[in-house]
C-alpha cells in the first residue's frame, strides 16, 4: 500500500553523466526534489542546464548514473524494461516540437489511439471511441481531424494532439518538456490554459520544464531553478517571484520581456553557460554572478532553507532573505 500523503515522485541525489570523447559531462549533478500528488513542479533554466535530462531520466529514457527515482512508492531507478512497462503507462511526456513528435504517416485518430493499441486495451472500436473523446477534450474536432495527418495542422493543434495521446493511458504524472516554447504567444496561452484545465479535471501531477520563468510560474505551484546541472533555488512560485534568493533567479526574471514600455529594463545576464565539461569550481554560477567573491570560487554553497519550503544555494543570497538562522 502506498501512503497518499507521500510524494508521487521523489528524486534523490540524482546524477546523470555522459561520456564525451575522453571526458565525462555531468548533465545532472546531485539533484533532489519531490513532486506531491496533484502538484505541478516547474523546472526552469537555460539550454544546457540539465532540466530536460532530468525529465528524461525520471521516465527512465535516460539511465541515471547515481541516485534514486521513486514513483508512487516504488524505486524505479534500476527496474528492467519489462517491470517498467506498467509504470511508464502512468507517466507520460510531451515535447517541445509538437510536429516532429507525431508520426507524419499516421492519421490523427491512429496516433491518439496508439497507446491503447500497443497495450491491446479494448476492441478497436472502443479504442477509436476513446480517442475521439480525448480529441474533443483537448479542443480538436474528431470528425474534422481524425482522418488527417499531423502536417495538416498548426503547431498549436499538434501540441493538443500530443497532449491527447499522452493522456490516453490515464497517467498520474505528465512531464512537459518545453511544451510551448515553439508556439506564438497567443497559442501558448491556449495550451497553458488547456494544461491547467486538464490538470484540474484529471487530478494530474506535472513536471513542467521550460526556460521562461513567466510561463513556468503561471502553471507551477513550486519552481526549481537549475543551473549547470544543479538546483540553485526551489520555492513556491509566488514566493520565488516576491523574494528570489539566488542571483541567477533574479537574472532570469530580469530577462523576461514584459509587455510594458515603462518597465525598467533589468540588468542583462552576461555570457553564456560555461562548458559542463569543465564547470567552475565552488559555485557554478560565480563566473556570471554580480555578487561573486573569492569564497564562491573555493566553497560550493549548499541548498539551505531560508524560509519554509524555500531553499537557496548561495553564500550571499539577495536582500530580504538571509541564509543564516
Amino acid at each position, binding site marked *: 500500500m502506498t501512503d497518499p500523503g507521500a510524494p508521487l515522485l521523489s528524486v534523490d541525489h540524482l546524477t546523470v553523466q555522459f561520456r564525451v570523447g575522453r571526458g565525462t559531462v555531468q548533465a545532472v549533478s546531485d539533484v533532489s526534489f519531490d513532486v506531491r500528488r496533484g502538484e505541478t513542479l516547474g523546472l526552469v533554466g537555460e539550454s544546457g542546464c540539465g532540466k530536460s535530462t532530468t525529465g528524461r531520466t525520471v521516465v527512465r529514457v535516460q539511465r541515471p548514473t547515481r541516485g534514486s527515482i521513486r514513483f508512487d512508492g516504488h524505486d524505479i531507478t534500476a527496474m528492467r524494461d519489462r517491470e517498467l512497462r506498467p509504470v511508464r503507462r502512468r507517466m507520460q511526456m510531451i515535447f517541445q516540437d509538437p510536429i516532429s513528435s507525431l508520426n507524419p504517416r499516421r492519421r490523427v485518430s491512429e496516433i491518439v489511439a496508439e497507446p491503447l493499441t500497443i497495450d491491446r486495451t479494448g476492441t478497436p472500436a472502443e479504442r477509436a471511441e476513446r480517442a475521439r473523446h480525448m480529441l474533443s477534450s483537448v479542443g480538436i474536432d474528431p470528425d474534422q481531424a481524425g482522418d488527417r495527418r499531423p502536417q495538416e495542422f498548426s503547431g498549436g493543434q499538434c501540441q493538443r494532439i500530443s497532449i491527447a495521446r499522452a493522456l490516453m493511458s490515464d497517467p498520474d504524472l505528465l512531464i512537459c518538456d518545453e511544451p510551448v*516554447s515553439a508556439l506564438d*504567444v497567443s497559442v501558448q496561452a491556449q495550451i497553458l490554459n488547456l494544461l491547467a484545465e486538464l490538470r484540474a479535471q484529471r487530478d494530474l501531477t506535472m513536471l513542467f520544464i521550460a526556460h521562461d520563468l513567466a510561463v513556468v510560474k503561471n502553471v507551477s505551484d513550486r519552481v526549481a531553478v537549475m543551473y549547470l546541472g544543479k538546483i540553485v533555488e526551489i520555492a513556491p512560485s509566488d514566493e520565488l517571484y516576491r523574494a528570489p534568493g539566488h542571483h541567477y533567479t533574479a537574472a532570469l526574471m530580469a530577462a523576461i520581456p514584459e509587455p510594458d514600455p*515603462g518597465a525598467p529594463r533589468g540588468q542583462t545576464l552576461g555570457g553564456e553557460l560555461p562548458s559542463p565539461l569543465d564547470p567552475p569550481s565552488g559555485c557554478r554560477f560565480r563566473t556570471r554572478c554580480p555578487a561573486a567573491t573569492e569564497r564562491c570560487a573555493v566553497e560550493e554553497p549548499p541548498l539551505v532553507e531560508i524560509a519554509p519550503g524555500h531553499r537557496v544555494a548561495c553564500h550571499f543570497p539577495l536582500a530580504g532573505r538571509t541564509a543564516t538562522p
Partner: protein
Amino acid sequence: MSPRRHTVDAFPDADELSDPLLQVTDLTTAFRTPRGTVRAVDGVSLSVRRGTTVGVVGESGSGKTVLSRSIMGLLPPHGVERSGTVTFAGRDLTAMSAKELRSVWGLQIAMIFQDPMTALNPVKRVGAQITESLRLHLGMDRGEARQTAAALLESVGIPSPEKRLRAYPSQLSGGMRQRVMIAIALACGPRLVLADEPTTGLDVTIQAQILDLLGQLQDERHMTMILVTHDLGVVATRADEIVVMYAGKVVERAPTATLFADPKMPYTRALMDSIPRLADPSGTRLATIAGRPPELIDPPAGCRFAPRCPWAQDRCRTSEPPLRTAGSEAHTFACWYPLTNGRPSVPVTHDGVAP
C-alpha cells in the same frame, strides 16, 4: 576609403534626410496556389523614419514575414504578384532590376533571419561567410577582410574572434550563431536592418542579450531597424513605433507608449493579454484569442478579426473598417467599435475564450 563612405557613395539619398528612410505604400503580395490566390500581404502601408525602430507584430500567418521579404524583394521568381511601392532613400525598390537590387542587399538593407542554423551555410567556416560580402561588395583583399571580420565578431560580443572565424556553425551555440548572423548582416554597414524573429527559439537570457546588442549597434551605427516578432513583450521596450498585422493587413499602428496605454483594436489588446506576466499570481488564467487566423484564400467579409472578436457587431461582419486616426496622425487603427483605454464601447457578443 572607409566601407561606410563607399556604400553611401554608391547609393546617394534621392530624398531629404527628414523624409522617412523607408516608405511602403499599398504593398500587396499574392501567391498563386492550386487552391486559389493567397494575398499574404494586402495593401500594407508603413513608413520608417531614419534612426528609429519599428516593431511589426502579429501571429503566425499574419503576413509579417512575407512583408519583410517583399520589402527586400526576396520573393520567388514565379507564382507571385507584387504591387505597390517600396521607397528606400527616395528610390523605388520595386522598379529595380535584380542587378540593381544586388547593390542594395547587404550594402543598404540587410536581413537577420529567425533560424541561424538554416540561414548559415553549415559546410562553410564562419570566417568565410562574413568575408564573402566584404570582398564582393567592398572590394577588400583577403587580409583586410579577415581583420574586418574579426573586428565584427568582437563587436557582436563573440570572445576570441580569431578562433571563432575558423569554426563551423554547428560548433557554436544558438546565441553565438545568431551573433554571427548579425555580424554578417552588419558587415557592409547597412542603413536598414530587417530582423525577422531574431530571438525566437533562444533562451530568454540570450534573447535579452541579442536585443540589447541590436539596440547598442543601432545607436553606434545610426541604423534604422524593423523588428518583426509575434511577441509584443519583445518590442515593448525596444521599438519607437509598433505596427500590428492581422491576416495580411495593418490593423493598428502607434508610437509604442500610446499603443500600450490606449490600444484601439481588440486584436492588439488580445495579443497583450495573452502574455503571461511574472507579477500575476501563479495559476492565473491567461486571456486567449478564440480560434485561428482566417484562411487568406477566402478571407471573411468585413473585418477579418470579427470571427474571433468578443465585441464584433453585425456591421463588423459585413463592412470592412478602414484605417483611421485616433487623436493624432501617428496613431491609426481599423475598427468600427474601438476600445477606449483598453475597454470596449459595446457589450460582449460572444465568449472570446478558446476551448
